[in-house]
């Protein structure tokens, strides 16, 4: 540890402004601050500062994603062995290992490409490396189908970081959730790889598949009028889907951590769920096809709804900035997600587009909240002389 610190301290002069290796400044600073909380003390303003910083905050978010990541790995293996009919003869660890080996490259590509670009931009701007991508980098793999080619992950990540974030000025300045920008990019650029029946389950070219294998997600089946999933499977996550989105239980564990630590906004999570349930009831009432008849609460455990509500809608940068606005923002995400999901004939999922749409309108929601604050403040009784 001491050797490491000495290394960083000794190399510091070489990356100062004007020094030979100044182009490595942000990289040096990024790693130094990662390993050591710096000895900088307060020079102005408050003399004490909270122990919490962005690294702490982001690492808690990553921690809250761990159940979904681990389950996603297991489920990847599970779906594979189920499809080739060897589930009964395969042990738990073998299943998990298969998934692990499938998922790790996706995560690695996302982090390497994304962090590479982040470091480069930080250096170009002369900024510190921002921690935001630690979360985006893990969210991107989790919202992708497992069979997405790695080069697509790389392209999408690059697009998301550059056009979703850096062109606006970096973390804290972006309008849309960067991870969803990555997914939306692939969704529109390579639709065949982001939907359909062949992307959710790795088959590895297996010759023999079980009878009646479809490969479709329960949501796609339901949209086709074929509602045959088990509620327990959908809740625990033993269904095909994007890597991290299938297990509502794992997502709830993450949600609990985010709420207990106060990092994720419970207001947004609750209002997204409320909006989804509201729209679900409305569709049940006016149902004209089997998908519309799907009991309203089952929407919450299908597709990306839970994942979006807990990890995507709550992104503090792209969400509304006012506390009251969060209720409106979340509720509309829930409503629009289910509306798109059920009534869009082409594609049976709406969470991603709902969140991106509300990201776009978040400043408008905030504007009205701020205006109402201004009006209310003007009306107050003043000091009586």
């Amino acid at each position, binding site marked *: *540890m001491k050797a490491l*610190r000495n290394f960083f301290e000794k190399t510091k002069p070489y990356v100062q402004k004007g020094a030979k290796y100044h182009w490595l400044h942000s990289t040096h600073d990024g790693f130094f*601050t990662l*390993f*050591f*909380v*710096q*000895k*900088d*003390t*307060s020079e*102005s*303003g*408050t*003399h*004490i*500062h*909270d*122990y*919490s*910083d*962005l*690294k*702490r*905050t982001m*690492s*808690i978010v990553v921690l809250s994603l761990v159940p979904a990541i681990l389950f996603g790995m297991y489920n990847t293996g599970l779906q594979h062995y189920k499809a080739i009919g060897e589930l009964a003869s395969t042990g738990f660890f073998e299943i998990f290992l298969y998934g692990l080996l499938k998922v790790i490259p996706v995560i690695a590509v996302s982090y390497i490409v994304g962090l590479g670009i982040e470091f480069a931009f930080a250096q170009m701007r002369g900024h*510190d490396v*921002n*921690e*935001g991508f630690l979360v985006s980098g893990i969210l991107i793999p989790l919202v992708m189908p497992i069979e997405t080619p790695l080069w697509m992950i790389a392209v999408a990540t690059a697009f998301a970081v550059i056009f979703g974030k850096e062109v606006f*000025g*970096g*973390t*804290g*300045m972006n309008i849309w959730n960067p991870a969803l920008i990555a997914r939306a990019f692939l969704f529109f650029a390579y639709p065949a790889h982001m939907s359909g029946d062949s992307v959710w389950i790795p088959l590895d070219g297996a010759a023999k598949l079980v009878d009646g294998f479809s490969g479709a997600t329960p949501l796609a089946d339901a949209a086709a009028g074929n509602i045959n999933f088990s509620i327990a499977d959908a809740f625990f996550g033993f269904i095909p889907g994007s890597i991290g989105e299938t297990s509502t239980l794992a997502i709830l564990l993450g949600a609990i951590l985010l709420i207990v*630590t*106060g*990092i994720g*906004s419970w207001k947004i999570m609750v209002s997204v769920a409320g909006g989804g349930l509201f729209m679900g009831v409305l569709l049940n009432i006016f149902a004209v096809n089997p998908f519309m008849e799907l009991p309203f609460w089952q929407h919450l455990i299908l597709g990306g709804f839970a994942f979006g509500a807990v990890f995507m809608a709550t992104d*503090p940068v792209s*969400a509304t*900035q*006012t*506390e009251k606005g*969060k209720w409106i923002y979340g509720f509309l995400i829930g409503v629009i997600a289910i509306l798109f999901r059920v009534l869009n004939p082409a594609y049976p999922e709406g969470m991603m587009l709902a969140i991106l749409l509300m990201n776009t309108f978040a400043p408008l929601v*905030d504007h009205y*909240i*701020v205006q109402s*604050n*201004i009006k*209310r*403040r*003007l009306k*107050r*009784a*003043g*000091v*009586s*002389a």
Partner: protein
Amino acid sequence: MSEVIKLRKGLNIKIAGKAEAIIETASDPEAYAIKPTDFYGLTPKLSVKAGEKVGVGEPLFYDKYNPAILFTSPVGGTVVSINRGDRRKILEIIIQPNGDTKPLAFSKANPLDLSPEEIKAQILKSGLWPFLKRRPYGIIANPNEEPKAIFISAFDTAPLAPDYNLIVAGQESTLQTGIDALSKLTKGKVHIGLAANGRSKNFEALKNVEKHWFEGPHPAGNVGIQIHHVAPLNKGDIVWTINPQDILFIGRLFETGKLDFSKIIGLVGSEVENPRYYKTKLGVTISSLVEGKLKKGGNVRIISGNVLTGTKVSKDNFLGFYDSLVTVIPEGDKYEFLGWATPGINKFSAGKTFLSSLFPKKEYILDTNMHGGERAFVLNGQYEKYLPMDILPIHLLKAILVNDIDKMEQLGIYEVIEEDLALCEYACTSKIKVQEILRNGINSMIKEFG
């Protein structure tokens, strides 16, 4: 007892080193000083030269743009030096006491029998006027303005704050005289904010004031927060504020006809051997307060004021004009390996990401480390938790950053000064310099509207 105003938002920082209720006499200081830098926006003009003799209450300097506002010597003695900084900015006027305590004579009278003009003239001449601050902006009150009311907070909720109830004990009649004088300066009322549950007992018998009781965590004791809940400031409204201990100076002036700048200050913080109160005088050297009273070893930071809003000082500096507290905490100038990843049982945090949040009763030694680098605004909803006002702090700060005067005005810049948003700066995950931004905003307002 009227209704208690309960405030839920805010935070009591669990910092170790609270003062015991013991008052001792501080050792005799070698020097005193008045620092023009304690007053925002002041352009001082000197009335004395180095080497001159001054008596208690003789002017040292005055406000260039309002020459009636005098700043006077807290003791009799010799002006030993006038320290200047960059561009010859006056930093300190240092006076060496010579035991000559013969003060200037002022008229001794019951303020209730005097006219407002007489009271104003006496306060101005004695150099007590600068204790009156003006809201908006938290600058020295302008004697040519008529405030709609005068506000006093009888308690301080800041970390390790001095207990005014203890400080004024036994001086209630002097306090009353001071309040009577203040009441003549406004056509409105004098409002006083008291701590609920009898913690402001020595203030409860006061007459000629409107009492309001407050309950809640810091910043419930900030006068700005109390104004907001009693009678919020709209555009064009002016009120004055004053600290309880400073009212005693005014009270003594009218009671005895003499200036007496004695005050009681708290010496607190985890690096103080026995945190307690000391009787001393305005503008005293820090060394006379802390010498021999600190724990051995370690690099410490001495703060005139509290840990949120105070000024960093060294031993040969002087107590701030408005301060009733000296805080000593450890400097945090050391690296911590993977500090952001530790469980953090000993790391007090406003949030709940450290295990320390499981032990709400514990007190912690907090140092001056930044605990992270400065970032753009990322988290939201954080500042709102620490500001018990109907104000959107982030939107106000963003309006200041883009220098949008209209928005600043609409979003409430008239109602806040640095101390009201200090907790936001403490808790900020992105380590944003909230107080500095706010003061820049206030400066632009002053520039724009004068």
